[in-house]
């Protein structure tokens, strides 16, 4: 069991999830964050912290897709331990859905 970051995080990166994770299982890309699904302990504390509702349990429809996507990038992006600033236009992007096509494969610089 794990939680997943979905595409609602893309171009926002509010990062309220980072400080509450007891096992520090978030990894940071250029314009989104993912969860290492092998490290997540399914505690669920991060889920209500996300202001855009990007974090979902693995019981959602299409969970397998999001598990693979999260794990793929968690294995190449750096671990994020400290909350930073949201992306500059986070508030503008917050209400946008279906942002998957905007995902950057680059790690945070």
């Amino acid at each position, binding site marked *: 069991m794990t939680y997943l970051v979905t595409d609602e995080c893309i171009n926002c990166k509010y990062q309220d999830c980072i400080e509450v994770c*007891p096992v520090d299982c978030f990894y940071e890309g250029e314009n989104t964050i993912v969860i290492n699904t092998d490290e997540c302990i399914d505690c669920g504390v991060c889920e209500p*912290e996300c202001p855009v509702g990007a974090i979902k349990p693995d019981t959602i429809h299409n969970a397998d897709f999001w598990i693979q996507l999260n794990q793929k990038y968690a294995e190449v992006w750096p671990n994020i331990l400290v909350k930073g600033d949201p992306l500059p236009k986070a508030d503008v992007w917050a209400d946008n859905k279906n942002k998957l096509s905007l995902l950057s494969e680059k790690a945070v610089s």
Partner: protein
Amino acid sequence: MINTNTSVSKYPQPAGTHVETVTDVEHYTDRLFRFRITRPPTFRFRSGEFVMIGLPNAEKPVFRAYSIASPSWDEELEFYSIKVPGGPLTEHLQKIVKGDSVLMRQKSTGTLVNDALLPGKRLWMFSTGTGFAPFASLVRDPETFEKFEKIFITHTCRDVDELVYSKQVCGNLINDPLCGEFADKIQLIQTTTRQKFTKMGRITELLSSGNLFSDLGIGRITPGEDRGMICGSANMINDTKTLLESFGLKEGSNSKPNTFVVEKAFVD
């Protein structure tokens, strides 16, 4: 007594952990026990939070999330645990004795904290099984009584002897150095779902029927006065959450406090 977990481990201490010493163990049933450990001088937490606990018995030890059952001011840390036969951690953890070592990761976290709730008059803590643990911390913290006039704690288990710990914590409150004067603000409501007891039934049934309120002689939950905290199994959380939402309460978090908060009680 044979010490099964000598305080000097043959394995290296994992990074980011504290090694603490067991100071007390009390077994309630063949499925439940509590233990206390020394507290690292640098370790700070908010009452209601949890930490990751493990044993120094492997190169890469198994860690599980444990609510801290003692309040933030206590010089020791207390935990309330289930014993799962064959459970990766609890199979071994249930055998600890005074003087043994326990590993604790350095980071505490959680949603069942006073900070995640907006101010209110009555605080409801709904728990099943070991989900009572974070509330054992919060009812021994004076801050909880500064924020709320009345605290109702519900604890539901299958059998009567699984209710001993919550009765002990709430019953001893009157002797507590910091919270004794607030003991009359607490009302513990214990129910069973299997074994015969003075009050029986799931908390969700008592909430939806309204019997919980009529038995207490009080009005139903309202978003203006009441705040809620829920800790139990996934099903119990979902059902109780739906009921609180039907009363007009909304889920909050650390970053966005509101009128109720939830957290899973870990079961293995």
